[in-house]
Structure formats: structure tokens, C-alpha cells
């Protein structure tokens, strides 16, 4: 299975869109392209199972190396393991749902869909690349469309938040670049040359002081993408003023780039520093979880509620990674997948409500269950999944993170885990407040009565995401088996390092 | 102190005196005259150094040409008033400080620097040596720079004409852009 196909499809769709005329053609091409991509991701999963069944124990499968620029040892080295397949599946799901939800964007529709596909291309490339430089390249490819999507099609103070988002993400990627270069210049293969290749670097152990310098750069850089505590302020503004599909992509995919990067680049390549700094990561993650949850309680705009809750949920990811136990890292990856699906569904539901009632203020909404039963039930499902109801993916992911973080014997980490557990109560409070006010209760203003329920494309998008959430929720063991080998190898690197502190 | 040394210091004082006056007088015309005297002083210095050819060139080009050119431009722009504005106090203080500091610094450097004076036969300038070396192509001849210089002068002349030519303002089409 040639992995570059995963990149060629979005590229091909993007070009096809450029030549299409009118909204109808553009959206059909985009939909076909993304569905093909979804099928391809499914085929990748099947092929992965086949290879694992045949007993292929190598960490990365379907590897392909192509020289990009010899003098700097830049290679287009791509390969996939369990974790990246999970991420690719998540991206494929969210992309199809995103395109379906933005079915009626008349304004500059060609460019809109082109940018969406470009964003997904960046994400796919990021998840399959095993060369630090290619990884960074695709990360940058993903940042630019976000700025344009929010700046042009956004609502509210869109250009301000687009600017803020772009600048902070650029700041983050600058830190990542420093981290990557730091790693690059401290690696020396047998032939004595530096290398960007992830797998080779993983074999060498970089000296501790150097790790201690460059680990914060890489981790904070990727952390900015996952709304790590002090650098999360782009999330509420960015999401609130983004169009529905863009906020789905932003929360669903781009926050996962950060988490995946933290895991693959920062923790995997610099394990000693990961141990040394784990208490800071956990401190920031716990603050993000609790602080995000409490801040959400006070929000009155639906999108802000979901944005702040994404900060809180991504806090779980960082907590999982910070704890450095096998279960907690598996939990972090599951939380990434589950949060991606759930927040995409939540934004889709909010987008549907907004496109009908033209207001996102919780105070002005009420009793929508009577007018729009389908959308309200989608909203409730998304809410219940985010507060960790069993049967949905939220529960399995959060429980794995909690169980994993409890394995870490440190007293203070135990306190952090208890605080993280306490956040499920606060999450329940703000989700029910939001759902209670918008969905249930008497009808606030009369003209909401004659609102239409979801059209076929919105129904299909919501069902697709709900299927994803329920499959992970009902049967998490398939996801665990997928992720298991990947985390084992990361843990072997981490385990090898004695507990430094 | 030989007569030549005294003579040198006289010339030096004359040059610096006229230089300072040229730079500080308020009347523009008087400043150009002081400049004229200063250049003449420099020519005298060349004579003192027994570089007669150079002194001649100095007088012809500088005194005869450039100063005259400057005086012409003063006449052309006389309408803006003979009296020059007072220099800005802040700037003059700063520049005075900078100048004094610069001069002191470099003079101190020069004093410390061990110049290896020429011990061979004394220097004497023969005009035909200049001529031969100027147009010589082989041993360090200056033919190439000589040609370049001539082209440069030509370009400069054409440039000045183009810049300074008085365009007849085509009244009708050009809208009167206010600056």
C-alpha cells in the first residue's frame, strides 16, 4: 500500500476543484474526494491488520524513502504505525463530515473547499511523515489555510482572531523549528552526518543537557497547537469566529497535530528530558483541565463553550503524555481520537443551530427540541459524549487516562489525577447548563417554532461522526490493539531511561 | 624650527582658519569665498610638499572649476535669501561633540601608530613619470581607471543636464498634483 496515495488524493481533489465551476460542482468533487480518502484510510487499516497478522514486527510499516535535498540530508521519509493510522482515520472522518456540513457556502465556495482540502492534506502529510523536516513542512501547510478560512468566511471579529490564531500558531511552529534543529545538530549517525530521520534519531540517545534545552522548545511548540495552558488564548477566539467546517477542522484535526507531535517528536526522541520535565507538563495540563472547565461554565456563547471545553479535553491529552506510563499514553492517543470526533460533532451541531437561528447566545435560545428534534439529539449526544458517558468514546478515553495517570506513584501526580477526575463533574455542569438552556426548557422566542430540521447532508455528517464515536465507545478494544504496538515502542524508549527525578 | 617648518604651520593655520570660517559664517556668499581661500591654502601646501603638478591641478579644477560652480549655484538660488538660517542648536551641539571626539580619537590613533618612514632616496615628482604611468597598460599602469573616469565625467555631465533642464510644463494634460 503506497502511502503517497494518501497525499495524492487530496492534491488531486484540490486541483479538480480549481477547474470546477459553481458551488454545485465544487462541493460534489470535494465530497467524492474526501469519501475516496475515507475508503483509502479504511484500506490502509485493513492492510495494516494484514501485515501485523503476517507477523511483521517492525515499528513502521509501508515505509518509503525518497531523497529531497541531499546536502542537508532532507528525506521524504514516510511510514505509518498504529497511532498514525488512528489519527488518519480520525482526520478522514472529520474531513468528510466537515465538507458535508459546509454544503451551502455560497460565498467564494471554490476557494473555501480548496482550502479545506489543503488543510486535510497538511494533516495527512503530518501524520504519515517520519522525517522531522517533512513533518514540519506539512505542519506549515496546515497553518496557512486556517488563517484564510477564519479571516474570510468567519463571523464576529474574524480578522482579529484569524490574526491572533495565525500568529500564535506561527510562534508555536517557530519553537518547533528550534527544537527540530536542536535535535538535528546533535545527532550523528555512524557516517558522522546529522539526520532528520525519526527512526535513526530514536536509536541514538542525545546527551541529557542538550535534551533538557531543546525538549521545552519542541514540547511547548507542539503544545501551542494543543492549547497548552498559557498559550491557549487563540482557541476560544479562533474557534468562535471560524465558520463551522473550519472550527471542526481546527478543533478536530489541528489540535491533534500538536498532541501527536508532542508524543512522536518531543517525548519519543528526548525521553530523559520528558522524565525531567514531566512535573511541569502535568502541572500545566491540570491547570488547563480545571481552569478550562471553570472558564467554560461562565461562557454564554455556544462556540466559546465548546472551544473552552476543547482546551479542557486537550488538557487530558497532555496529562496522559506527561504521566509517561504505558496506559496513560494509550489514553492520551484515545483521548485525541475521541475528542476529535466529539468536538467536530459538537461544532457541527452548533453550526446547524446557528445557520437556522442566527444566534449562538445561550440566553436567546431555548426549547429547540420541539422545533428541531434531530439536531437537538445530535447536540445532546455530543454533550453526553464530552462529559464521558459510557457507550461513547469519551468514557473509554478518559478512564484510560485516569487509570494510566494513577499508575504513576508520585504523590503530587496523584493530586493532579484527582483534580483531573474532578473535572468530569465540572464538565457535566457546563454541558448540562448549555444543553438545558438551548435544547430543553420552554421556547424562548416564537419564530424558532417554524425552523426546519436537519437536511440530508447535515444528517449524514452527524450520523457519520456518531458512528465513529459509538464504535470507539462500544468497542474500544480494537482501538487499543491498534495503538498498543506504537505505545510499547515509545515506552521501551521511556522505560530505558531511569526515573531521573 | 627651520623656515620650511614655520612656513608649513602657517599654511596649516591658514587652511584650518579659512575652513572653520567657511563652515560657520552666516552669509552664504562669504562662506564660498572662505572655501576658495581654504582650497588655495591646500594648493600652497602641495607646493610646500614640492608636488607642483598636483597643486596646479588643484588650483585649476577645484579653485577654478568647483568653487565657481558653487558660486553660480548660489546666484541661481539667491531668491531664498542671502542670510542662511541658524543651525538647530541640538544638532550643532551633538555634531560638535561628535566631531571633537572623532578628531581626538583619530589623532590619538595616529600618534600611537608606528609609521615606517621611507628610508630610500627622497621622493621627487617628475610630471612625465605621471604621464607614462597614467597611460601605461603594463606595470601598474592606470589606463583602465583613466578611461573609466572619462566615461564617468561624460555620464555626470549628461546626468546634470537631464536633471537640471527646465521642463516646459504641458499645461493641459498633466493635472496639477499638489505635493
Amino acid at each position, binding site marked *: 500500500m503506497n502511502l503517497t496515495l494518501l497525499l495524492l488524493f487530496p492534491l488531486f481533489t484540490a486541483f479538480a476543484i480549481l477547474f470546477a465551476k459553481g458551488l454545485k460542482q465544487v462541493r460534489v468533487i470535494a465530497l467524492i474526494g474526501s469519501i475516496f480518502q475515507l475508503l483509502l484510510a479504511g484500506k490502509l487499516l485493513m492492510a495494516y491488520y494484514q501485515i501485523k497478522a503476517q507477523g511483521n514486527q517492525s515499528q513502521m510499516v509501508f515505509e518509503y524513502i525518497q531523497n529531497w535535498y541531499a546536502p542537508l540530508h532532507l528525506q521524504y521519509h514516510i511510514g505509518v504505525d498504529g497511532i498514525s493510522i488512528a489519527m488518519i482515520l480520525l482526520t478522514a472522518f472529520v474531513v468528510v463530515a466537515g465538507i458535508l456540513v459546509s454544503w451551502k457556502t455560497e460565498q467564494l465556495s471554490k476557494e473555501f473547499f480548496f482550502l479545506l482540502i489543503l488543510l486535510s492534506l497538511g494533516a495527512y502529510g503530518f501524520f504519515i511523515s517520519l522525517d522531522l523536516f517533512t513533518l514540519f513542512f506539512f505542519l506549515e501547510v496546515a497553518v496557512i489555510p486556517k488563517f484564510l478560512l477564519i479571516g474570510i468566511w468567519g463571523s464576529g471579529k474574524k480578522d482579529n482572531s484569524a490574526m491572533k490564531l495565525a500568529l500564535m500558531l506561527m510562534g508555536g511552529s517557530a519553537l518547533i523549528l528550534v527544537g527540530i534543529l536542536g535535535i538535528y545538530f546533535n545527532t550523528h549517525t555512524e557516517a558522522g552526518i546529522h539526520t532528520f530521520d525519526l527512526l535513526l534519531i530514536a536509536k541514538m540517545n542525545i546527551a541529557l543537557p542538550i535534551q533538557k534545552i531543546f525538549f521545552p522548545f519542541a514540547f511547548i511548540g507542539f503544545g501551542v497547537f494543543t492549547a497548552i495552558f498559557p498559550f491557549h488564548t487563540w482557541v476560544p477566539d479562533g474557534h468562535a469566529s471560524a465558520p463551522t467546517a473550519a472550527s471542526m477542522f481546527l478543533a478536530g484535526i489541528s489540535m491533534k497535530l500538536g498532541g501527536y507531535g508532542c508524543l512522536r517528536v518531543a517525548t519519543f526522541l528526548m525521553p530523559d528530558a520528558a522524565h525531567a520535565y514531566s512535573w511541569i507538563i502535568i502541572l500545566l495540563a491540570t491547570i488547563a483541565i480545571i481552569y478550562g472547565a471553570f472558564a467554560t461554565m461562565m461562557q454564554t456563547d455556544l462556540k466559546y463553550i465548546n472551544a473552552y471545553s476543547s482546551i479542557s479535553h486537550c488538557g487530558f491529552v497532555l496529562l496522559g503524555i506527561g504521566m509517561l506510563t504505558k496506559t496513560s499514553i494509550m489514553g492520551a492517543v484515545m483521548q485525541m481520537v475521541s475528542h476529535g470526533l466529539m468536538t467536530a460533532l459538537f461544532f457541527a451541531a452548533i453550526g446547524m443551530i446557528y445557520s437556522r437561528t442566527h444566534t449562538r447566545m445561550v440566553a436567546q435560545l431555548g426549547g429547540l427540541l420541539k422545533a428541531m428534534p434531530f439536531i437537538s439529539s445530535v447536540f445532546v449526544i455530543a454533550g453526553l459524549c464530552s462529559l464521558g458517558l459510557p457507550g461513547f468514546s469519551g468514557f473509554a478515553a478518559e478512564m484510560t487516562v485516569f487509570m494510566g495517570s494513577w499508575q504513576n506513584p508520585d504523590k503530587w501526580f496523584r493530586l493532579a489525577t484527582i483534580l483531573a477526575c474532578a473535572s468530569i463533574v465540572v464538565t457535566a455542569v457546563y454541558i448540562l447548563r448549555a444543553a438545558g438552556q438551548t435544547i430543553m426548557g420552554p421556547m424562548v422566542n416564537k419564530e424558532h417554532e417554524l425552523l426546519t430540521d436537519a437536511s440530508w447532508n447535515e444528517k449524514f455528517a452527524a450520523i457519520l461522526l456518531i458512528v465513529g464515536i459509538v464504535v470507539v465507545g462500544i468497542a474500544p478494544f480494537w482501538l487499543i490493539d491498534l495503538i498498543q504496538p506504537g505505545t510499547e515502542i515509545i515506552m521501551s524508549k521511556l522505560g530505558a531511561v531511569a526515573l531521573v527525578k | 624650527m627651520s623656515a620650511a617648518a614655520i612656513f608649513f604651520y602657517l599654511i596649516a593655520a591658514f587652511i584650518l582658519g579659512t575652513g572653520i570660517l567657511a563652515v560657520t559664517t552666516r552669509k552664504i556668499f562669504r562662506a564660498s569665498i572662505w572655501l576658495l581661500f581654504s582650497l588655495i591654502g591646500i594648493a600652497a*601646501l602641495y607646493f610646500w610638499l614640492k608636488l607642483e603638478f598636483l597643486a596646479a591641478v588643484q588650483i585649476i579644477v577645484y579653485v577654478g572649476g568647483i568653487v565657481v560652480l558653487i558660486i553660480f549655484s548660489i546666484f541661481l538660488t539667491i531668491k531664498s535669501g542671502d542670510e542662511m538660517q541658524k543651525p538647530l542648536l541640538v*544638532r550643532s551641539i551633538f555634531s560638535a561633540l561628535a566631531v571633537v571626539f572623532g*578628531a581626538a580619537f583619530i589623532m590619538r590613533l595616529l600618534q600611537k601608530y608606528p609609521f615606517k618612514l621611507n628610508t630610500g632616496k627622497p621622493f621627487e615628482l617628475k610630471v612625465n613619470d605621471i604621464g607614462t604611468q*597614467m597611460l601605461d597598460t603594463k606595470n601598474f599602469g592606470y589606463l583602465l581607471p583613466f578611461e573609466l573616469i572619462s566615461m564617468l565625467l561624460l555620464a555626470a555631465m549628461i546626468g546634470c543636464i537631464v536633471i537640471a533642464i527646465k521642463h516646459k510644463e504641458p499645461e493641459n494634460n498633466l493635472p496639477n498634483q499638489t505635493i
Partner: protein
Amino acid sequence: MNEVPLTHILFLSTALFFIGAYGLFTRRNMITMLMAIELMLNSVNINFVAFNKYLYADKLDGIFFSIFIITIAAAEAAVAIAIIINLYRSHHSIDVEDATELKY
């Protein structure tokens, strides 16, 4: 001839150079700035000539340099005056403080 040490001549040229510099910094009239520049160029000439005479008596490069400087100074003065006249036409004054269009 050699009673006067080289450094004294260099002092002279340095002093002349900084007088020119002072004139360049403080004079508000463009033409006087031009004059100041002429002074600075002349001080450089003195330097060349002095070095040639005192340090490298057998060669003539210093002299050639100062000759070329003189010619270039002439060309430069001509171009400068052309610009000044043009400025005068557009600004009706050659005060350097007025020509500040190229600011922020």
C-alpha cells in the same frame, strides 16, 4: 622638508576632515553642505599625498589617487548642484529641513 613629521600633516588633514564633517552636520543650506563635502575630499587628498611622499617615495600611486579624487569631486559637485537646483524649483528653498517627504 623632513623637519615636519608625517603625523603633523595627518593632524592637519584630520582636523580639516572633521571641520568638513561639522559643516555637513550643522549647515542647513544644501550648497554649504556641498562645500563641506569638498573640504572633506580635500583632506583625504592631503592624506594620500602625504603617505605617498613620506612612506612610498618610489611609487606614485598616492598622487594618482588624489588626481582621480579631484576629477570625481568635480563630477560629484556638478551633479550635486543640478540636484540642488531641481530641489529649489520644487521646494522654493534649499533648506535641508524642508525636504522631509521621505519620512515615516
